[in-house]
């Protein structure tokens, strides 16, 4: 009986210790009062959005910097817009979710921003544009990423009221494939439509051969990879096909547009851009639509797509920027950059936004959101090309910055 009691006591002791550890929760964030003081001075400076670089810098430099980062990097100066944000002073948490198309960009931006703003913890959960929009509707997140615009009938669902679109970055949607023996591939929109509607199922099909007169195509089955979740990438991809060969033109694309399509039976579905990438990388004969960043990181081969002008263009950042030139931007900053005019424009370029409510209950949170978005549109733009995203054209960027100022105003 004693031995049993002893063993029970030991186990009970271990259990209670772990329970105590759980109960005595303590946040690991360290806060310093000096940084709080600096934050108030910079908040004032940011709100005024003055253009005097010198003035802003001295006000912030006066505050005590307890971080190891040099003063220069903590005060972000954008020469064009002149908005000063003291990243080091930002503290708090931001929770967000949404589009996986720009996720690689946001992840990298968050990681590099963390070096300048160690007290700001940002979480971007991904999950697809659909998830982001619905999370923001219910205010389960502070802001959301979406590659497609919100439908009019859904506006009322946004419980926080009015929201703004902040375009952040552009990127091409590649048609990546995994087929040994095909090193270069050219595809017209009509062929793409036929592939994804499972009208042609073999790589050696005459339609593909017609697009690639010089290539020898293997006699292998095509495996179509598409998105399982509600995806802005799907939305933009389908909008391109609809504009190029949809019912209003040649009528070859019949699945319409939307973040979820009624795909024919027999396609493979992945969760997020990374899920589709996973299918392509592990399946011989697969083809799917993936953002350039994920495609390059996986070493995929992708097709050159015929654009509106009739040229076969590869999904490069330059071709993406070319697609954005002269695109019509609406007042709320929504626009569509696919199937664009332009000789060297890549036809499946895509845009993405971050949406956030204009009314914010917590001014500190609003400041954090503005801070992160400003980072995306300043230093983030310089960071983008290194991970295969294209920065916004200047005009668009300025309009985006103006929208940022509306958050929590």
């Amino acid at each position, binding site marked *: 009986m004693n031995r049993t009691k002893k063993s029970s006591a030991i186990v009970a002791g271990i259990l209670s210790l772990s329970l105590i550890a759980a109960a005595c929760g303590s946040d690991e964030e360290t806060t310093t009062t000096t940084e709080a003081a600096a934050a108030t001075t910079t908040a004032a400076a940011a709100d005024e959005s003055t253009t005097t670089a010198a003035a802003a810098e001295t006000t912030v430099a006066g505050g005590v910097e307890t971080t190891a980062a040099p003063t220069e990097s903590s005060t972000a100066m954008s020469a064009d817009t002149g908005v000063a944000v003291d990243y080091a002073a930002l503290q708090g948490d931001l929770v967000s979710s949404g589009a996986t198309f720009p996720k690689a960009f946001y992840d990298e931006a968050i990681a590099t921003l963390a070096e300048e703003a160690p007290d700001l913890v940002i979480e971007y959960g991904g999950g697809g544009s659909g998830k982001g929009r619905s999370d923001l509707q219910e205010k389960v997140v502070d802001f959301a990423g979406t590659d497609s615009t919100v439908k009019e009938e859904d506006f009322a669902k946004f419980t926080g009221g009015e929201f703004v679109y902040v375009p952040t970055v552009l990127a091409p949607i590649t048609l990546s494939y995994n087929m040994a023996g095909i090193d270069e591939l050219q595809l017209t929109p009509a062929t793409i439509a036929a592939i994804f509607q499972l009208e042609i199922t073999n790589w050696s099909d005459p339609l593909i051969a017609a697009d690639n007169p010089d290539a020898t195509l293997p006699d292998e089955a095509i495996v179509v990879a598409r998105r*399982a*979740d509600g995806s802005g990438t799907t939305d933009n991809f389908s909008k391109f096909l609809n504009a190029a060969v949809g019912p209003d033109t040649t009528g070859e694309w019949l699945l319409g547009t939307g*973040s979820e399509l009624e795909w024919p039976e027999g396609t493979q579905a992945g969760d997020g851009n990374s899920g589709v990438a996973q299918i392509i990388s*592990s399946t011989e004969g697969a083809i799917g639509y993936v953002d350039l960043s994920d495609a390059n990181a996986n070493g995929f081969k992708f097709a050159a797509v015929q654009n509106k002008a009739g040229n076969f263009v590869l999904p490069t950042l330059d071709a993406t920027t070319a697609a954005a030139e002269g695109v019509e931007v609406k007042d709320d900053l929504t626009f569509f950059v696919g199937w664009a005019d332009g000789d060297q424009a890549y036809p499946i370029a895509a845009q993405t936004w971050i949406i956030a409510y204009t009314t914010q209950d917590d001014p500190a949170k609003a400041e954090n959101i503005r801070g992160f978005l400003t980072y995306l549109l300043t230093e983030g733009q310089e960071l983008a090309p290194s991970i295969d995203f294209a920065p916004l054209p200047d005009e668009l960027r300025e309009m985006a910055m103006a929208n940022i100022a509306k958050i929590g105003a």
Partner: protein
Amino acid sequence: MTLTLSDLRTKKQVGDRVFRYSTLVGGAVILIVLALIAYTISSKSSLIFRTEGLDFFTERRWAPSADKPVFGALSFIYGTAITALIAVLLAVPVSLGLALFTTQVAPKWLKKPLVTLTDTVAVVPSVVFGLWGIIYLAPKLVGFFKNLSGWFDGIPVLSSIFGTVSAGRSFLTAGLILAVMITPIITSLAREVIETCPQTDRDGALALGATRWEMITGAVMPHSVGGIVGAVMLGLGRAMGETIAAALVIGSSPTITANIFSSGDSLPSVIAFQWGEATSDEKRSALIAMGLTLFVLTLIVNFAATAVVTRAMKRMQGAS
């Protein structure tokens, strides 16, 4: 004032009653939680039933974002049924073989390790099986599936069951992973049932000149068949409800086809993947309704299983 014995008795009684009722509370919590689950799930799924009625169960199309959204659960019910069926078909021979080997064939020193072996499979979390399935197993199976498919080319019914292979994620892969996961359940319960077979029955068979296998089929199986059926049904219930492992390898592409190499989708997997996007109240209601369907289906199977097992156990205890 000194405490008299009667004072003590009252104090004790009060304390005792408090204790008794607090244990009642502990048990009542279960009832409360279950009632809440039933209520929440039913009420939230009522929207889709008002919109679509019972067509929800027979509708094959799943088009939540179409201009006129259609929510049909049939493909997912099919996927759940097919993968569970494959899982059971694969698991039963292995589990039975394992249970019989452990109880009838293995020498004494081997019994304990075999039980430990079975139980170790049960310890591995389901998400680890899913990880192993999607990264390790699925790509490796493609070649094997293609060969298998080739064998059945041209044979009338079988070639549509073993049809074209596109990728490693399929009904069959999901069924395989589920089979591995439910084997411990079926095996341990079958073992328990088999071990209650009286030694006299077994000795009698052997005395009449039976081989071990004939003894098994002649004495052990007739005795245990009820319990084993119950064990299999419990395994079936578990296979139907298992979410993560199957979700990762089933392909997430709603399909109704006899081809077991095709990818598909199942009730728990679609809920897990699509839940995050309540693009409409109807869609959310549809997903909850699918949760309700899954709940009811597993309930029915588990009930039937428990009933079968209890009846078989009672009969065996009566006989011995």
